[in-house]
């Protein structure tokens, strides 16, 4: 890299020397806007590096020669140019309203003036993504955009995140937005296998995109905006535009960004520190940790009291010849287990351009180590794009991104004894876990215990040494991805052009998983590999016609076609036991066992023809219309052609009514209607009636599928309607946008669960309907704007009301669940009911106790719902001289979470609440029978252990359901840019140093012990549930950005 800088440096010096030979004079002047002189405006000589800023009185002074063009710019204003003439004075009046000319990138990458857009679209600039950065790009959208709900699964490196726009619109589809990068549909699948029962989460596809390469992200929230994506549009679209060399007039920019952050756990459960391991509090003796001592096989903390001078033989007594050791608390034993995560990201980019061609390339890498020991994640990416005019009428371009994501080990989550957090819940509060770290020098677990032959642990019954597990049982991930496109545009004449474009998204990934011999869940060890290849090619051609019909009317018309071909192949193998220890290869299969091997080839295609256009009147009334017909291969041939129309319009009232010079700068009303589609979870070959083959120790066996095929399916449809307005006032210092929308989904495809006695457990059918209605509000206020100081507040709010309006023949559809709780879709309720067993209650709602224990209902019922009531964000940006400060607060209010950390934590006696009544007993808060058909206050004292184990655990769900509301201080950044005058004469154009922090604090929450933003993965059925959460990460560090 260094040599390149040298080269740029040399070039810059050469350039500045050249300038010094030119005939220069000093031009002075005053820059003003409607309200007076404008301090802090930038003034540069076009095509050169020379630039200055206006002073307090709006005055500037710059060296230029006659014929030079000066460019004046100021945030919130339209750039103004003026040619230097004979005069040495040049006064300029700037116009408000960069906002008015803001460009919105719409479906198929079509750029539109903001005022011509008939739907709500919100964009995020790339610069907000890079400072207080997230390793998963999707998380950066949290709280920024009204109507976007982001859920980060956990604080594990490589964790997936879920992004839903305007509520879930399908029962079984993934419900997540379609990602499109520079026109290329970008697969966002997460291939993790984590769920409530364990497994390894893997990042969603979009997490690979480097934020350093992003110019902007535009969120097309609803079907109206996304209509041109037809059958793929039902969940909205995130359009990512990468940076390019466009608009650069020379080899103008080389940029280097470096970001270093450190992370630690944001939330750790509040544990009790008064009682140690055991099922009984009388005595403890460690013999083998497997139950042959006294209380030593127990993974609960109902044992003897800590810090009272007791000594017992414990797991680490071997260090003192088997003598008793003090029975004491280690309040930070869990916190100390987690390490400080470190993330280092570097990116270098070069861009250049002129009127005929432009080019940008960037190279970046990041290396992250997790808070969970021995976990990491690395990324490397190279991006390049270029556009060139090949002649008067022909232009072409190419863009290419290469991304490599890699991990040597990703942690196991969920209810699984390889998730270290599990042994902090099923746990012994007297154990100092970090003492287990040096496992290579620990004795081995005793013969006959479950952990036999592996390094000693405090419990050898249900757990292995957690450090040994993490260092030995590694789960690797490696993905190479190439996406890109190339296009050719021919401009036949001023009205007619045609563009052909080919887009590719391709990746291949390998995941492996190791389990050493002696692992609790795999005593013989295991090894597995999964190799996957994915490619999607879209070929597209679009003919465009633009014509000014007369002085008032403009028309544009486009017709085109697209063909999508997607192929995913997978080859996997796993062996259920190892012959030789510590050797991980599929050939090392334990004698007598049978390997699982398989492969899959999945091809899907969508063919489309489409047309869209716009008719505008006098640049203030705009009508957009589009239609797309899709043919999808996953559907029955006789029923696979579907037409998706859309129409929207906008009226710029401020121009019609001539409000330009009033307090109202801009007022636009907009609205639209559209119909789009989806195929839910229906995949390729779901229409085929086939047999399954299983090879096992007896040989090959055939079986029939449990899901019945149905040849009469059609796609899901979503009809969207929206209305709204945008209003700017007070010199654009007040910015308001409001949208009301409805989204009606019908014919939703569901493999409906049927009574198993039918011979099937499910049958595919178009049975369900769902509705979303909501409002989105944005409010921006420039509280202060002065030369040295500005203060901006941006608020967004979204309320979405979701209702499953029909499930056809079904009363409920189970999406997922853990233990006794299920996450379900039920008619009349919002998507994601939490269903489980509740306490029996008297007519006044008090829990009924019998013999001091709560009565538990035998029938399950709805106990909560995972859907939030509203989401919102508030960002505050302050600029003072060369300092800027910004912060984001992100709120998700309402919705519930079912926490098995709480349920098992109380059952196992590790949470601080379990201290209540340990010595004196517990009287449950509620009533008991008065023997005469009525109720009196419960007064029966029961033991704390029995009470906790009856009221919490896996036989009652109601006691573990909490409000999932959170308000988070999502990001903070304090930046300092070196003043331009200091940099004058150096090769550095900009230098900015920022202190940054993400997920700084949870300002408010109701769910105890956990971060309520959680999920076992990004899948539908894994939301609103928690157990053994890998803590979310609070990260802090700094960012350096240098432009040359």
């Amino acid at each position: 890299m260094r040599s390149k800088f040298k080269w740029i440096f040399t070039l810059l010096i050469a350039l500045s020397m050249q300038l010094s030979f030119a005939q220069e004079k000093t031009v002075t002047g005053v820059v003003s806007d409607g309200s007076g002189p404008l301090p802090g405006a930038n003034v540069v000589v076009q095509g050169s590096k020379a630039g200055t800023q206006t002073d307090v009185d709006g005055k500037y002074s710059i060296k230029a020669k006659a014929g030079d063009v000066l460019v004046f710019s100021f945030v919130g204003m339209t750039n103004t140019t003026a040619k230097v003439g004979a005069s040495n004075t040049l006064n300029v009046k700037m116009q408000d309203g960069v906002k008015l000319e803001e460009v919105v990138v719409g479906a198929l990458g079509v750029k539109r003036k903001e005022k011509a857009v008939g739907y709500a679209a919100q964009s995020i600039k790339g610069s907000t993504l890079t400072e207080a950065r997230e390793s998963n790009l999707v998380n950066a959208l949290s709280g920024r955009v009204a109507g976007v709900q982001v859920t980060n699964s956990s604080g594990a490196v490589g964790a997936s995140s879920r992004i839903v726009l305007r509520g879930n619109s399908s029962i079984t589809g993934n419900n997540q937005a379609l990602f499109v990068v520079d026109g290329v549909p970008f697969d966002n699948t997460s291939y993790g296998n984590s769920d409530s029962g364990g497994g390894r989460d893997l990042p969603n596809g979009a997490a690979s995109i480097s934020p350093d390469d992003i110019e902007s992200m535009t969120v097309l929230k609803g079907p109206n905006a996304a209509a041109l994506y037809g059958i793929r549009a039902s969940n909205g679209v995130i359009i990512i535009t990468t940076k390019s060399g466009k608009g650069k007039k020379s080899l103008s920019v080389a940029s280097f960004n470096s970001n270093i952050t450190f992370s630690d756990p944001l939330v750790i459960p509040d544990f009790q520190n008064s009682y140690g391991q055991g099922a009984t509090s009388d005595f403890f003796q460690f013999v083998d940790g497997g139950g042959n001592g006294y209380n030593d096989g127990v993974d609960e903390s109902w044992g003897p009291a800590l810090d009272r001078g007791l000594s017992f033989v414990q797991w680490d007594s071997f260090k003192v010849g088997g003598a008793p050791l003090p029975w004491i608390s280690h309040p930070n034993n869990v916190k100390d287990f987690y390490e400080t995560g470190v993330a280092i990201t570097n990116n270098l980019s070069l861009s250049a351009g002129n009127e005929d061609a432009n080019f940008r390339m960037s190279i970046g890498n990041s290396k992250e180590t997790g808070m969970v020991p021995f976990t990491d994640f690395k990324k490397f990416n190279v991006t390049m794009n270029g556009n060139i005019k090949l002649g008067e009428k022909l232009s072409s371009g190419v863009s290419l991104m290469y991304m490599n994501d890699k991990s040597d080990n990703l942690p196991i989550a969920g209810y699984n004894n390889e998730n270290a957090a599990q042994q902090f819940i099923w746990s012994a509060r007297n154990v100092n876990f970090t003492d287990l770290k040096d496992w290579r020098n620990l004795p081995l677990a005793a013969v006959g215990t479950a952990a036999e032959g592996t390094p000693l642990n405090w419990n050898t019954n249900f757990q292995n040494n957690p450090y040994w597990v993490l260092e030995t049982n590694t789960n690797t991930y490696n993905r190479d991805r190439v996406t890109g496109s190339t296009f050719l545009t021919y401009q036949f004449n001023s009205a007619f052009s045609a563009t052909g474009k080919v887009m590719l998204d391709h990746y291949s990934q390998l995941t492996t998983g190791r389990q050493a011999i002696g692992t609790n869940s795999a005593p013989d060890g295991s090894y597995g590999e999964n190799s996957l290849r994915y490619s999607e090619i879209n070929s597209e051609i679009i003919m465009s016609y633009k014509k000014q019909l007369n002085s008032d009317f403009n028309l544009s018309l486009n017709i085109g076609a697209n063909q999508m071909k997607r192929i995913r192949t997978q080859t996997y193998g796993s062996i259920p036991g190892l012959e030789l220890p510590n050797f991980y290869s599929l050939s090392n299969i334990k004698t007598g066992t049978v390997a699982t091997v398989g492969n899959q080839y999945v091809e899907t295609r969508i063919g489309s023809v489409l047309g869209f256009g716009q008719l505008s009147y006098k640049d203030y009334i705009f009508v957009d219309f589009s239609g797309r017909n899709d043919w999808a291969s996953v559907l029955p041939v006789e029923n696979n052609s579907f037409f998706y129309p859309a129409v929207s319009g906008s009226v710029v009232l401020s121009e019609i009514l001539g409000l330009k010079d009033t307090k109202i700068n801009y007022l636009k009303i907009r609205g639209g209607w559209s119909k789009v589609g989806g195929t839910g979870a229906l995949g390729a070959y779901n229409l085929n009636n086939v047999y399954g083959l299983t090879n096992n120790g007896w040989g090959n066996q055939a079986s029939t599928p449990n899901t019945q095929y149905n040849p009469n399916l059609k796609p899901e449809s979503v009809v969207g309607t929206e209305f709204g307005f945008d209003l700017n006032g007070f010199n654009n210092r007040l910015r308001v946008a409001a949208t009301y929308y409805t989204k009606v989904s019908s014919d939703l495809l569901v493999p409906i669960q049927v009574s198993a006695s039918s011979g099937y457990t499910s049958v595919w059918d178009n049975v369900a309907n769902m509705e979303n209605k909501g409002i989105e509000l944005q409010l921006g206020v420039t509280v202060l704007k002065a030369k040295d100081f500005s203060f901006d507040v941006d608020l967004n709010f979204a309320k979405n009301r979701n209702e499953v309006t029909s499930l056809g023949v079904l009363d409920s559809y189970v999406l997922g669940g853990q233990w006794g709780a299920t996450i379900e879709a039920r008619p009349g309720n919002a998507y994601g009911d939490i269903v489980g067993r509740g306490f029996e209650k008297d007519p006044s709602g008090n829990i009924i106790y019998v013999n001091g224990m709560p009565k538990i209902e035998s029938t399950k019922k709805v106990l909560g719902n995972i859907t939030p009531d509203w989401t919102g964000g508030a960002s505050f940006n302050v600029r003072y001289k060369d300092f800027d400060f910004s912060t984001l607060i992100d709120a998700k209010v309402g919705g519930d979470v079912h926490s098995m950390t709480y349920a098992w934590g109380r059952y196992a006696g590790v949470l601080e609440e379990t201290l209540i009544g340990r010595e004196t007993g517990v009287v449950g808060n509620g009533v008991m029978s008065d023997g005469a058909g009525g109720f009196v206050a419960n007064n029966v004292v029961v033991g704390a252990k029995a009470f906790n184990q009856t009221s919490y655990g896996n036989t009652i769900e109601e006691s573990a359901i909490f409000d999932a509301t959170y308000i988070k201080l999502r990001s903070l950044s304090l930046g300092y840019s070196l003043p331009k005058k200091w940099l004058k004469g150096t090769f550095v154009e900009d230098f900015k140093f920022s202190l940054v922090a993400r997920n700084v604090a949870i300002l408010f929450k109701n769910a105890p012990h956990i971060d309520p933003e959680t999920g076992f993965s990004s899948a539908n059925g894994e939301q609103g549930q928690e157990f053994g959460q890998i803590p979310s990460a609070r990260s802090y560090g700094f960012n350096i950005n240098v432009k040359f």
Partner: protein
Amino acid sequence: MKKISILFVALIGLFSASCDKDFEEVNTTPNNPVAVPAHLMLGNIVRINQNVIYGMQQGGDMGMCWAQHVSKVQYNDEERYIPRRGAIDAIWGTLYASVISDAKSMYTLAEAEGNTNIMGISLVLQANAFQILTDLYGPVPFTEACVSGNLKPAYDSQEVVYTGILSMLTQAETLLASGTGVVPASSDLVYAGDASKWRKFANSLKFKALMRISKAPGQSVSAQLQALVNAGQLFSSNDDSAQLIYLPAQPDSNPIYETVIFGTRSEYKVTSVLIAGNYNPTSNPNGFKGLTVLNDDRKAVYAQKNTSGAYVGNIPGVENPGSYGAFSSLGTKYLDPTLPGVILSNAQVQFLLAEAANEGYITGGVTAAQTYYFRGITANYEFNGIGGLAAAYTAQVSLGFATQVGGRQKIAEQSWIALFGQGFEAWTEYRRTGFPVLSAVTNAAPGVTVVPTRLYFDSTEVSLNKANYTAAAATLSGGDVLTSRLWWMN
């Protein structure tokens, strides 16, 4: 310009594949077969059936624990009659959607192939699965079960189900008696392709079904039982036993091993009832005296010594989480990966013959009953690898009986001992005969005062098949609860 036109023509060519002409072909799976020979389904049906019945969450936590053969020193909710609904649902779902449904598919395939042997085998396996279902749940879908197009099958009374089961087995006997068609040994995990053994199994299973309903209201089974005895097609040696021999390596090993040893759940112990009995001259005068008092050699096979070298069973329902080592684990034979998953044993058939003779359903009276009874004990001793000790054991005067009443309890108790390891069958036979005399476990769930008599219906039925579920639950004495009486209960 010409070059450009060519370029565009080429681009348009990319779309030349018309939009749906070959979509049907595109959407035809290359990953799964669309046709298979009938026999290839046989192994899977047997394997799936046995895995769910012997799964420790099912046959262990409910079957073995409720039969009071086994007790858990920790995590004993199910033992205390707070079962996991998911574990119960798994039996229903597996037996219907994977066993019966596949057996029906196998029948159809075999019919097309003209393989009457496999047709007969299919009926035997269906009858076995339906009997397990109705014995566990009570009324269950039978006539409308696994019938294409019916997504909400009605439940049938147990009487209707049993009539159906008997008719299936009669049909199976007919098919197998003159069977044609090869049953490849590699696909037949039970009898390695010996159709004559399947015929014996069909008849023995029918004998078991008849005995199960022998005391049900309005049933007269005597003639049918005698006919089966006369036909001479019942099990007569342990070689006839229907069982799946599990393999040494998981996941194809016995589920008991897979959970207790491989899954390291060492909280499973034998009960004090099994070892020391629950007999008490005053409070339980008809109680079981225990293997120790009976001088039963199977004690050392069923249980291991505790860390102090003694056979100590855990009191059912009592947790002793602090000290796993103080109680006897299951014997090594029962924790072995290759322990057979018994479908129907010769020993059980002998005990049923003994009972039939003792009750006068078949000829021979008490004398024949005792002969069959000793045969049953001997067969079970052989199964346990201690056949040589059987003669001395049965020679004990205390073991024999001379009266119908004495025989009734002794046959049932010996049958219960012999069914160790077959959790659900042991519990079911206890529910039918009432022997050994068991009481609800200590610390039983509030409101449960007796050993459960059935399982809850599949928990999804209430939403997926509501009307039929509600109607069926209404026919049960206490509704869909664990203690509703079944039709055939004594």
